[in-house]
């Protein structure tokens, strides 16, 4: 690789990483507690537990559960209802002022067997909420998400350019060399290269899937426009079906599940919400297999008649979104996987921090050798070889 090519890549690496580094550090730091959000919830006592009852205790009608939830917040509507991930006896009902997307929501946790309110956990306050919001959208809604998505894109550019620069930096060094006995800056350069190249694929996958996640809102909107709108033609011009005119949600759930056997409920989106239509209660069912449990099958049930209208296949872009999510969260392979995720996250923090350090210390380093001069061997930091393809000494600071 010629010096000029290296300089170009170094410029790309420098600016792509410099711009995104602060945000990436924020994402890595806030992501760390999010990897363990279930465990932290248990420790803080914010996870809702159902009381022990005889196994197989029959469940109350879902209509009763919803009635109880509505009684808690008569001024609100039910937007979503879902079963707890780990406990089939627990319903979570999300109540909002209107069916539109909003940050203003209340959650009511109801025992599926007795239809009694167990708790009203607040998911919109506290330490984990702040971590979550900083990680997802910087408290700035969709623009915040898209901004972080763009930072994710810059991270991917930084990773690719970092790979290109790895070769000229490491050509004369054994894999894993960290020159601790030399200047501090050289040690951090070696650590940056080592941790960067080892965590490369992981960080690329987590960065790319994170970026895809930031498009979720838009992807869902596109799905409504692309596929749901065709199904809605017969209902055009009608307002959202009022609660009083709706059929039984329990019966709707049964017909939806009969439509897609070997599935279980993921969540229910009520009429007029972002995941449904004004005329349907949409049941999102998930498969029973490890892989299919990450995918969703929507079943649209007419809110008035409780009859299935359609069960459209999830389009490829929503499938891609759903498959990419566990790859970002790292919560799909048990506790050891979460611990590995956290360690790789810490390694990334070191890569980002060392990159920043290398850039800040750029003024105190030996200048980039002139390609026409003799090799500079006495400093020990550039390998003794023809300088025509000698690397620039640092990935971030030299090509300005």
């Amino acid at each position: 690789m010629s010096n000029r090519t290296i300089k170009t890549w170094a410029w790309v690496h420098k600016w792509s990483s410099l711009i995104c580094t602060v945000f990436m550090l924020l994402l890595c730091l806030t992501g760390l507690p999010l990897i363990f959000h279930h465990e932290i919830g248990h420790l803080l006592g914010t996870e809702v537990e159902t009381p022990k009852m005889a196994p197989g205790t029959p469940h109350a009608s879902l209509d009763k559960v919803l009635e109880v939830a509505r009684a808690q917040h008569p001024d609100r509507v039910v937007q979503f209802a879902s079963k707890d991930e780990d406990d089939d006896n627990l319903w979570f009902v999300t109540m909002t002022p209107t069916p539109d997307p909003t940050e203003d929501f209340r959650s009511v946790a109801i025992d599926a067997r007795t239809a009694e309110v167990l708790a009203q956990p607040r998911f919109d306050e506290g330490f984990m909420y702040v971590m979550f919001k900083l990680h997802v959208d910087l408290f700035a809604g969709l623009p915040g998400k898209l901004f972080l998505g763009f930072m994710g894109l810059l991270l991917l550019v930084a990773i690719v350019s970092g790979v290109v620069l790895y070769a000229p930096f490491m050509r004369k060094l054994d894999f894993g060399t960290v020159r601790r006995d030399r200047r501090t800056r050289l040690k951090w350069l070696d650590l940056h290269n080592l941790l960067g190249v080892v965590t490369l694929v992981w960080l690329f996958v987590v960065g790319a899937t994170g970026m895809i996640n930031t498009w979720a809102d838009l992807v869902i909107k596109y799905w409504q426009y692309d596929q749901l709108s065709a199904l809605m033609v017969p209902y055009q011009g009608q307002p959202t079906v009022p609660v009083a005119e709706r059929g039984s949600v329990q019966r709707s759930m049964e017909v939806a599940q009969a439509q897609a056997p070997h599935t279980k409920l993921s969540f229910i989106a009520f009429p007029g919400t972002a995941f449904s239509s004004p005329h349907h209660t949409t049941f999102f069912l998930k498969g029973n297999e490890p892989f299919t449990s990450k995918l969703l099958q929507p079943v649209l049930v007419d809110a008035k008649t409780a009859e299935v209208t359609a069960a459209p296949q999830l389009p490829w872009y929503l499938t891609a979104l759903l498959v990419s999510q566990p790859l970002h969260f790292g919560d799909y392979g048990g506790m050891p996987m979460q611990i590995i995720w956290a360690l790789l996250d810490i390694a990334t923090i070191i890569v980002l921090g060392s990159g920043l350090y290398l850039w800040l210390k750029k003024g105190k380093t030996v200048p980039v050798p002139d390609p026409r001069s003799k090799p500079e061997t006495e400093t020990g930091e550039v390998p003794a070889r023809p300088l025509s393809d000698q690397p620039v000494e640092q990935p971030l600071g030299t090509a300005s």
Partner: protein
Amino acid sequence: MKPRHLFWPLWGWPIAMGVLTCIGLVSALFSDGGFGDMLAWLTLGIPTAVCFWFGWVRRIEQRP
């Protein structure tokens, strides 16, 4: 043009780490607490251990 023999000494281990990571990421997707999970722990654990070993523990001898 680089001599061919430089490729593997330079890229062999990074590629191995990348392949292990890919196996780990995918195998856990298709498993639920079984062999796939353990394979993921192993294949993702190795790059993590490599970071720790070379970055933290190992001391190279100073060359004269």
